[in-house]
């Protein structure tokens, strides 16, 4: 296991690449979900305002 984590001495380079990949994909995933939620919430309040009028 230790040997695997060590990556033949290249641990820093390999694991930061993998980490960067996951973090970036996660940021993308979260940002598109947040955006989707915000847009839906805005539309809901838009509808509510229209109905109240």
């Amino acid at each position: 296991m230790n040997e695997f984590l060590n990556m033949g001495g290249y641990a820093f380079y390999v694991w930061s690449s993998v980490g960067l990949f996951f973090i970036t994909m996660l940021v993308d995933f979260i940002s598109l979900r947040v955006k989707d939620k915000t847009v839906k919430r805005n539309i809901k309040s838009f509808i509510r305002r229209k109905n109240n009028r």
Partner: protein
Amino acid sequence: MKKQRTNVIVRLYHQLGSPPSFYRISGYFLKWLLLIAIILTGIGLYDGLVLAPADYQQGDSFRIIYIHVPMAWMSMFVYAIMGIAALIAIIWRMKVAEAVLIASAPIGAWFTLITLVTGSLWGKPMWGTWWEWDARMTSELILLFLYIGVMATYTAFNDDSRKAARMAALIAVVGLVNLPIIHFSVKWWSSIHQGTTVSIMGESRITWEMLRPLLTMAVATKFYYGYSMLKRARTYLLETEQQKRWVHDIVEEKKS
């Protein structure tokens, strides 16, 4: 009846061209795209980081290939999709194509950024430098600028999303036409300025055990792109059509 069957592709084209049916049809795929992407990424990375043998020249550092190369492929693949969507958006003024274009830009830019940074992380142990102005890295950097240009154009016209999308489409097409010119001139430029061309792949031949995870990752990232792009495109359509009936139906339905 017969007529409908012969026109199945045409019908699909028209269905996908209308925002409500695009929204409905893409909804069936979303979950599966994400699921397959996650599973394939798991398999691919396990295969690449654990099972694949170390390269005899580069040792374990070559394993960065399983992030770097799929990302580099995707950065170009996404730009190609963007270019096609942009052409459709300009010629036929298809709203869904605009959504695909705008939704592709952020994920494409992320792919390009990862390509650059992982390339740098690979370059440090292999070439002894974080950055080398070689042809591929330079054109990848310019590709990132082109992505930023498309996104910046869209945000600049934020008061009118239709106009903004068509402007962004125009810039994407101009970039698509320029990309080969940029690519070849940069390639030619670097061949003049460097005595020896730096090559990450080197002479070492790639075996099936090494290639398998690479292909798996290439497919996995395409599925994630599919998810990210469709999801963003759906949000985009909701946002830009928020006056329309079908959007209200969808949003209200979710609430109850």
